[in-house]
């Protein structure tokens, strides 16, 4: 096995036994990145020097006999909307193109303390707004399975980097599917934890009631290891929840006998890709053969997920992005502005890309006087009904299994002219954020065209363990390979 094909678990064993050094693996991956990244565009910034310094530090730690952290010496990638001290954090936007944060996001700090090596910052849709990683100041990222197609988004760079072996694992953020959808398109495992599980301190805010950080990895075991390192209460994020984090590895037993799997009829809709449906239904059959029990359930308000999500998310975004005013940090429009107000208008006009402006406009409209009740408040009320659907459903099942996206990865440029078509791709992922639930996407097959299909597994609040248990059992039966010839 080549070094870049290693998993966290496999590499950790070799590092702990001193069969290979972190510096060696890091150099190998950096060389691979410089070879493949010009084509794939998974990384915005590669931090070679910092990575090698971290690797040498990790080697020192391992030489001292400290092999307690499974991430020590393991090279990973960080999505470029998480603050990294001293390394620019752009959000793929002109607004933050040269922004160098003076502090680490809590998630980044935890990984740093665990001894992980940061290879660089990954490409994304600007401010995490998009489902294709085409809306990036640095150009589109490509799907490693088919370079003419999108990797999904907004964490497309992270999913691409994991699938193409340009890192061992990566972090992503998920507001309406931004971890799970690119994981599905790239054939890797990605998880959005329960809202409140992982601190968002230092994550550049998009929609604060929905944003959550999570892992993107090559298999379920790695996903649980990275998740373990990310979780935990943080007083710096007032929405982070102070409850015990279980040992996720203890759920990876392979035993799903008696587990009740909810199958929502609303997630197998007319018009969805037949090969996607077949792959997911086959996945359910495999779990059934292992002793799980499928249960028909209903989530009747699913069809309203897209409007509810896009109203709430854009409303919050319009407020969150008000901070980009060209004064304290970030871009300011060049040339003389007569007044402060004129400077604001020009800075925001030139600093934001088309999709971000569209969403700020939509959110501002939904919050504006006269439309607040009809749109924003209405969306919040229907959100309550969507949450209640899940509460009711989980009285009859332990996990819910669905497709992650109704169709496989689409060609670059196909949907950029029609924003609504792009939004509709998020139909199976957004409701999960609205309800705050944990959700995981994993590969469950490929289409005849060789594109990966993602299966989504959802759990109750703070029950990531049962989601991982289900995913692991499925993986054991299929050992679906996510390898590509990048």
């Amino acid at each position, binding site marked *: 096995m080549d070094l870049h094909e290693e998993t966290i678990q496999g590499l950790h064993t070799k590092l702990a036994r001193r069969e290979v050094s972190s510096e060696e693996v890091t150099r190998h991956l950096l060389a691979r990145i410089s070879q493949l990244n010009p084509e794939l565009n998974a990384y915005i910034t590669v931090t070679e020097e910092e990575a090698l310094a971290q690797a040498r530090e990790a080697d020192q730690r391992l030489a001292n006999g400290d092999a307690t952290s499974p991430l020590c010496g393991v090279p990973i990638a960080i999505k470029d909307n998480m603050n990294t001290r001293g390394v620019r954090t752009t959000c793929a936007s002109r607004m933050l193109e040269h922004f160098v944060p003076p502090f680490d996001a809590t998630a980044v700090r935890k990984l740093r303390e665990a001894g992980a090596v940061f290879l660089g910052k990954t490409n994304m849709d600007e401010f995490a707004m998009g489902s294709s990683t085409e809306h990036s100041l640095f150009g589109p990222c490509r799907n490693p399975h088919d370079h003419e197609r999108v990797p999904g988004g907004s964490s497309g760079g992270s999913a691409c980097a994991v699938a193409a072996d340009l890192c061992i694992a990566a972090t992503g953020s998920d507001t309406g599917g931004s971890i799970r959808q690119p994981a599905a398109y790239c054939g890797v495992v990605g998880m959005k934890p329960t809202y409140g599980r992982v601190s968002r301190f230092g994550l550049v805010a998009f929609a604060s009631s929905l944003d959550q950080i999570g892992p993107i990895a090559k298999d379920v075991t790695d996903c649980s290891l990275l998740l373990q390192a990310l979780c935990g209460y943080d007083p710096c994020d007032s929405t982070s929840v102070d409850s015990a984090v279980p040992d996720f590895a203890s759920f990876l037993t392979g035993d799903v006998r008696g587990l009740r799997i909810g199958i929502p009829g609303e997630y197998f809709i007319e018009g969805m890709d037949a090969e996607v449906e077949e792959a997911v239904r086959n996945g359910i059959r495999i779990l059934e053969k292992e002793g799980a029990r499928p249960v028909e359930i209903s989530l009747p308000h699913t069809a309203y997920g897209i409007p509810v999500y*896009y109203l709430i998310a854009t409303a919050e975004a319009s407020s969150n992005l008000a901070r980009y005013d060209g004064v304290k940090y970030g871009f300011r429009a060049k040339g003389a502005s007569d007044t402060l107000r004129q400077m604001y208008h020009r800075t925001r006009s030139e600093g934001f890309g088309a999709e971000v402006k569209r969403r700020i406009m939509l959110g501002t409209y939904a919050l504006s006087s006269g439309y607040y009740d009809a749109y924003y408040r209405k969306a919040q009320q229907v959100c309550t*009904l969507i949450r209640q659907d899940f509460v009711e459903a989980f009285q009859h099942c332990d996990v819910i299994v669905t497709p992650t996206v109704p169709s496989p990865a689409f060609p670059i440029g196909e949907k950029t002219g029609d924003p609504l078509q792009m939004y509709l791709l998020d139909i199976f992922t957004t409701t999960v954020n609205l309800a705050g639930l944990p959700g995981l996407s994993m590969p469950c097959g490929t289409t005849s065209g060789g594109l990966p299909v993602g299966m989504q597994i959802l759990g109750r609040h703070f029950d990531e363990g049962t989601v991982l248990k289900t995913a692991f059992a499925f993986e054991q039966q299929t050992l679906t390979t996510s390898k590509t010839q990048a």
Partner: protein
Amino acid sequence: MKVDKKDVEYVAMLARIELSEEEKELYSEQLSTILAFFDRLKEVDTENVQPTSHVVDLVNAYRSDQVRPGPGVEEVLANAPDRAQRFFRVPKILD
């Protein structure tokens, strides 16, 4: 819901974004299409439904009001687009 050019100009003013003529036309058309799709929410009876503002049962998170070390002035100003001495510099505020 039809969003005409005047609506777009008003919203852009609220959002402090300067738009070109082409952008105004594009957003007028796209926001109209998107909002027309969103109007399906009207089908849902929400008569006695409480709005959700937050998904997890959290009450206000308090902490004691203690002085803690923060970044220094130089560190904070390092990312400023324009500065003078220890301050952010901006164009004049009054018309």
